[in-house]
């Protein structure tokens, strides 16, 4: 019946072979509703007297709003309410405010300066959708059209138009220090110097629309006891709830959100654009209000997977070993942050792909442009760079005249290898994937390559964290004053060195409140300094294809400079081994978390009832 082959030899010691669902047909638990047309999507709730909302949207990429005249719309038939930017109680937010990441940069309705085509300015509520459209058509907005920037690298020029006044350098601020996310592992310059070949490439991924069949939307209606019910297509119910509470400055206990049946999302239904406006509309009219994208809005205004541009530079030996890899990446996050800042953290943690490369450096920029804001979509943060890496692997294979699958097997990470973000690789299976792919595609690989396994050859020297070269180039604002290079290390006035074996602390926005909230290093694969490691297991690997070996350089003779962040995961601790953050006095709450007590560093909208 099934053509799936199970590789039971993989992860054999982690398998629970009592599993019995995979590989045979099963009946989805929600499919009866689907085939009878009874599954309750957000729009499948009938309300007497439902009102319809449509937005007036920017026709310009970038323009200052001089004035908004809604007087004609007020007089149009069927219009119940015109919502202007000043009607939004707390009209500035960023999605990740709920986890205290980034600054509020986006208005629910924009009244000052629009930064992308389709940005909402005014919302009209009318008795029919057609009436709302007709009224939206007579709103007059006086624009002062501004120069715009649509390319990520152009946006980094010193004289580029400022997309968002919250981030005047057109880049997200990382760790309140740099205009990009740094990753430093070993010494790429040394690797390039040793290499037989330098292979460079430039890769571009376009924005991709999730295009769910059900467009994004929400219906909100007054309930008893001053509450509002909101049926929504959201994929992130509590995100939407918290965002609505914040923008409307109301306790989340007044919000009764119902989701769960989504007509396709693929990541594109997390931006919480509809729920706040629907609830606000319902509050202002006292009636049920529906706000839904039409298809054109879904495609133009609905946030896509953002565009990415990657430059990759590899140092490669004649035998195909990649000894250094450098990335310069640009995420086009559009006009507002949404989730792109986070995608970059995620993407940086993924570098240099599923390969063991002893020297890795990366600068990744979250760049603001006058394009539709980008958001989540299936594996976002990883997809674009993986596309680039795998294209580049083929280019490297061509440069050294090697079978591209054998090149991947040669460089693949193996269990126990140290990854560039200083976590040990485990459960690796790239080698096995390559072998199966080659066999399925009738692509010949050598007997040596076919004999490799992810279980052997890793660890040992490959588990070591090398001495790492650091730099402090690209501080926030530097690029506004002078044009400076974007690639790692270039243009740095001074370089620092971090001793071999130095690990870093995991990123934690808020210190753990209880002991059991401290991340367990064993569980996460997070590694302590080399000194604390158990003795390295000697490699038993003996196949002709030798995995790359890396000999840590001798420690520097002079005292190292104070190191800047060298990894995607927060500031390295000079004294290393700091698994627990080095906060002087970790905050200890006096009340349980759920009570919504205001705590330092925690969004007051994150949970429960906000006390005024």
């Amino acid at each position: 019946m099934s053509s799936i082959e199970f590789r039971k030899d993989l992860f054999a010691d982690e398998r629970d072979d009592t599993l019995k669902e995979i590989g045979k047909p099963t009946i989805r638990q929600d499919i009866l509703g689907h085939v009878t047309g009874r599954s309750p999507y957000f729009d499948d709730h009938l309300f007497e007297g439902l009102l319809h909302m449509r937005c007036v949207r920017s026709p310009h990429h970038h323009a200052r709003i001089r004035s908004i005249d809604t007087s004609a719309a007020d007089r149009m038939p069927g219009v119940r309410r015109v919502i202007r930017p000043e009607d939004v109680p707390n009209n500035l937010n960023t999605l990740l405010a709920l986890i205290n990441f980034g600054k509020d940069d986006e208005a629910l309705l924009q009244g000052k300066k629009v930064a992308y085509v389709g940005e909402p300015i005014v919302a009209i509520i009318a008795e029919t959708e057609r009436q709302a459209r007709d009224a939206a058509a007579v709103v007059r907005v006086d624009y002062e059209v501004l120069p715009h920037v649509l390319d990520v690298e152009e946006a980094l020029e010193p004289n580029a138009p400022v997309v968002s006044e919250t981030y005047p350098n057109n880049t997200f601020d990382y760790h309140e220090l740099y205009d990009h996310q740094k990753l430093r592992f070993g010494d790429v310059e040394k690797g390039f110097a040793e290499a037989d070949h330098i292979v460079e490439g430039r890769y571009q991924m376009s924005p991709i629309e999730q295009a769910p069949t059900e467009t994004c939307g929400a219906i909100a209606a007054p309930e008893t006891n001053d509450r509002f019910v909101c049926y929504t297509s959201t994929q992130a119910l509590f995100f939407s709830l918290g965002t609505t509470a914040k923008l409307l400055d109301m306790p989340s206990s007044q919000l009764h959100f119902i989701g769960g049946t989504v007509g396709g999302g693929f990541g594109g239904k997390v931006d919480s654009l509809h729920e706040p406006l629907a609830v606000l509309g319902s509050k202002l009219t006292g009636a049920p209000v529906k706000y839904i994208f039409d298809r054109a809005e879904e495609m133009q205004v609905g946030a896509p997977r953002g565009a990415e541009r990657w430059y990759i530079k590899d140092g490669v030996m004649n035998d195909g070993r990649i000894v250094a890899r450098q990335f310069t990446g640009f995420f086009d996050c559009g006009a507002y942050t949404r989730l792109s800042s986070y995608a970059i953290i995620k993407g940086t943690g993924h570098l240099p792909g599923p390969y063991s490369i002893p020297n890795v450096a990366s600068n990744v920029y979250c760049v603001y442009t006058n394009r539709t804001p980008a958001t989540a979509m299936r594996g976002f943060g990883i997809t674009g760079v993986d596309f680039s890496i795998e294209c580049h692997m083929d280019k490297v294979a061509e440069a050294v005249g090697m079978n591209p699958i054998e090149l991947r097997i040669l460089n693949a990470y193996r269990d126990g290898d140290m990854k560039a973000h200083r976590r040990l690789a485990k459960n690796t299976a790239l080698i096995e994937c390559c072998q199966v792919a080659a066999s399925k595609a009738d692509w010949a690989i050598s007997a040596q390559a076919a004999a490799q396994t992810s279980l052997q050859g890793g660890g040992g020297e490959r588990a070591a964290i090398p001495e790492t070269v650091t730099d402090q180039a690209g501080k926030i604002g530097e690029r506004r004053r002078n044009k400076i290079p974007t690639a790692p290390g270039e243009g740095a006035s001074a370089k620092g060195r971090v001793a071999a074996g130095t690990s870093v602390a995991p990123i934690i926005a808020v210190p753990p409140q209880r002991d059991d909230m401290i991340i367990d290093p064993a569980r996460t694969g997070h590694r302590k300094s080399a000194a604390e490691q158990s003795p390295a297991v000697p490699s038993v690997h003996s196949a002709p294809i030798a995995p790359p070996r890396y000999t840590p350089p001798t420690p520097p003779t002079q005292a190292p400079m104070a190191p800047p962040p060298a990894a995607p995961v927060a500031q390295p601790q000079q004294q290393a081994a700091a698994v627990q953050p080095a906060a002087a006095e970790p905050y200890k709450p006096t009340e349980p978390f759920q009570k919504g007590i205001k705590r330092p560093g925690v969004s007051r909208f994150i949970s429960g009832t906000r006390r005024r």
Partner: protein
Amino acid sequence: MAKTPVRFTLNGSETALFVDGGANLLDTLRRGVGDLSPKYGCGQGTCGTCTVLIDGEPHLSCLTLAETVEGRSIETTGGLSNGADLHPLQRVFMENFGAQCGYCTPGMLMAAKALLAKNPNPSREEVVEAISGNICRCTGYEPIIDAILATAGQMRGRVA
């Protein structure tokens, strides 16, 4: 506002109501009558999610002016089962994983029903053609095509 009366049969039941000028059949069925099975996906005839049968033939309800269905017979997925007894298409879609998010399913079922009514023994190519106006973003279509072919086989077997 001027309203126009319109009468039709919906899944065999006589239905009459008043519609706004320019109202489409999709909104009329959903909010006017309360049959929520046809869905809105695009409002422009590209997704097929709102497909209903008018006199047995598939039509896009979002592009159908409601008052043009005066006196005609409309079928939707809401009327596909006979009480608790599922139509063979519904049953086989369930067994073949022919729906994931489920949003395109009512339109797919109507397109499939129209096909099987005309052509009880369709080729795979004919099934693909029959649902070529219906977009599914989850399944990759293969389970849907398999389900329609399997249903055709079962229905032929039942008749024979």
